[in-house]
């Protein structure tokens, strides 16, 4: 007689809020331990390294400024994709929507920079929202008209617009000076003003935009008819139809808003920290935002918190590399281990793995 263990996965029943948060904290602890083991194997003291990461992200005003500068685009992009995700529309195209917004904003920065700063920046912001929004409505239109797969569609659009920036840099928008291709710098009036963030110091005005959009998304999802509609479409598209909701219109409208916020991120990046159009304007943030949105369970407050933690980790890892001469790839592995554990923890909130003993 032989006996074998069988593993099975089953869905958990009701999970209380307290249980959920305990799981999350456990996952984070597990992540830090797993990362610590990795660091030990490399011959480093994990406590020392984690302390350096925290210090590197938060200890001085200058470092806090850099952390906030990382957080602004991450938080806003996550809020953007969250609108689409609530509707179960898998917008993996934030990367491209950021680029679209950046291009539109840069157009006004390069060719209409005679306008006074306030007007020019407003025009750039509106242009970026519209450009990002339209770029996002393209897959939404095909989805509603031909039922195309939006995951692939939005993903592929990223590459098109990314290369379009390269084209602009190499061709029509190239700075004529110098032997290498680059776009010119923005003039002063096309740059975002710095505003004092209490306890952090001067950061470009994007941090205020971040809080405004955060509050707006919170209310939009929770207290408006449109927010309710898009949630229903997400939960069950047939219910929405039977209830007489204009489903196609809701999908188009929501994608415009989702992508519009991402477009605005593009404007904030080019006019804020970058001060010129570069092909690294999105630089993977559109994808990081997907993880952040999921880890936050599509909750705006959660997004603020998680994107802050992500920024601390990113800034901390950069400091760790320099201080301990850890190769960049190692710090990426460490980030990967931490993310893997935290995301894995989400699985265990919903599911459990059990063992049965089967008589053979």
């Amino acid at each position, binding site marked *: 007689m032989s006996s074998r263990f069988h593993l099975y996965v089953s869905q958990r029943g009701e999970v209380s809020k307290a249980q959920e948060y305990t799981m999350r904290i456990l996952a984070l602890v597990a992540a830090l331990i797993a990362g610590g083991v990795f660091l030990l194997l490399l011959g480093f003291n994990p406590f020392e390294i984690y302390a350096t990461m925290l210090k590197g992200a938060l200890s001085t005003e*200058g470092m806090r400024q850099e952390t906030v500068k990382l957080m602004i685009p991450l938080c806003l992009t996550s809020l953007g994709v969250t609108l689409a995700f609530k509707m179960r529309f898998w917008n993996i195209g934030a990367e491209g929507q950021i680029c679209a917004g950046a291009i539109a904003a840069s157009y006004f920065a390069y060719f209409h920079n005679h306008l006074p700063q306030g007007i020019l920046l407003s025009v750039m912001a509106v242009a970026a929202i519209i450009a990002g929004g339209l770029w996002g409505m393209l897959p939404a239109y095909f989805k509603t008209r031909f039922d195309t797969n939006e995951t692939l569609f939005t993903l592929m659009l990223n590459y098109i617009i990314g290369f379009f920036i390269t084209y602009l840099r190499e061709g029509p928008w190239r700075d004529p000076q*110098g032997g*290498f*291709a680059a776009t010119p710098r923005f003039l002063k009036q096309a740059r975002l003003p710095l505003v004092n963030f209490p306890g952090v110091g001067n950061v470009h005005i994007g941090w205020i935009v971040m809080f405004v959009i955060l509050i707006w998304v919170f209310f939009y999802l929770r207290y408006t008819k449109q927010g309710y509609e898009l949630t229903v479409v997400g939960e069950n598209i047939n219910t929405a139809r039977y209830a007489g909701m204009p489903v196609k219109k809701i999908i188009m409208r929501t994608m415009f808003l989702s992508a519009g916020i991402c477009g605005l991120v593009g404007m904030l990046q080019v006019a804020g*920290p970058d001060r010129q159009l*570069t092909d*690294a304007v999105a630089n993977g943030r559109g994808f990081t935002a997907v993880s952040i949105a999921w880890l936050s369970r599509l909750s705006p407050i959660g997004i603020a918190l998680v994107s802050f933690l992500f920024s601390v980790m990113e800034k901390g890892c950069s400091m760790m590399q320099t201080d301990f001469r850890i*190769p960049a790839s190692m710090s990426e592995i460490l980030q990967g281990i931490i993310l893997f554990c935290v995301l894995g923890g989400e699985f265990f909130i919903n599911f459990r793995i059990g063992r049965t003993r089967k008589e053979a």
Partner: protein
Amino acid sequence: MFKKTLSLFLSMVMLISLAAVQVHAVMPAVSKEDLKVGAVFIGPSDDGFTGAHYNGIEKMKEAVGLSDEQILYKFNVPENSECESAMRELVDKGCQIIFGNSWGYMNYMEELAEEYPDVVFSHCSGYKNNGVNFNNYFGRIYQARYLSGIAAGLKTTTNKIGYVGAWPDNAEVNGGINAFALGVQSVNPDAVVYVKFINSWGDPTLEKQTAEALLAIDCDVIAQHVDSSMPQVAAQEAGKFGCGYNTDMTAVAPDAHLTAPVWNWASVYTAEIEDLINGVWEPVNYFYGLKEDMVDISPLSKNVAEGTAEKIEEAREKIVSGEWDVFTGPIYNQDGEEVLKEGETLSDADITGTFMVELLIKGVKVE
């Protein structure tokens, strides 16, 4: 009365001369023990281009006698505001000099230099200089490419040489192609250099495919201005030959590789750091070449044609002695027009600027 006037006069002279010293802006000396050097690099420490910079900094560290803790690296830094963040962090950590090795860092470094006048910002591959604390450095890699062109020109039997290029309309890339082609033509006037651009500084898959496409049109030597060694691998697989770049690629393509133009950034890094320690750092632009040992070719492999070493030595001597440089007329563009008259030499500004952006010489064909 006279004494008073004299002393007043003398003190005024002193004041004026002090002011004059400030205008000339020699950075104050930094003691070797207090020195902290920042390095912000576009790639990882083990790729072709950044790898060469990393080796340069490490050699400088040995030569000057600095400790590991005095060198602060930032790798994989993209050409957007993240380079500025990285540099601010390095300033925060007390670096007195910061090197950046990518073109796209230039404008950020220029603005940071204004914000932090006590820190030296030294930028590789650009052209700007603020006359105070911001300069740039680059190398005459075209001289090494010319020498590798000699090896290629002597080796080819089909008289078709392939060249995997990075970006079109780029002064460094075009300068490299032109110098290589001039080297080829100096020993083999009939050979044609076929160029294919990949629109990227490095993309191993694309590099290999592009090399294969060039081999397919009968090129039997493959040169490259891209980061990986894949073009050499492609040449080896086809039983053909090639000239690598950045590092000696003989190990990865032992039966194909001839020689590779290589960088030795230690010379410029050591010069700048020693100047800073000695209090004589000035905002001059460095453009070192074969003579200063900034660029060279890797040792000739067993695959080179007979007589290659002698021909290369001959050209090297002329360049090192300063008797002659690669871009000396007559030089003709692709339409056959003379762009540089007999005996004239291109200025450094033309070699690194728009002149070169617009020039591909006769005997180069873009596929």
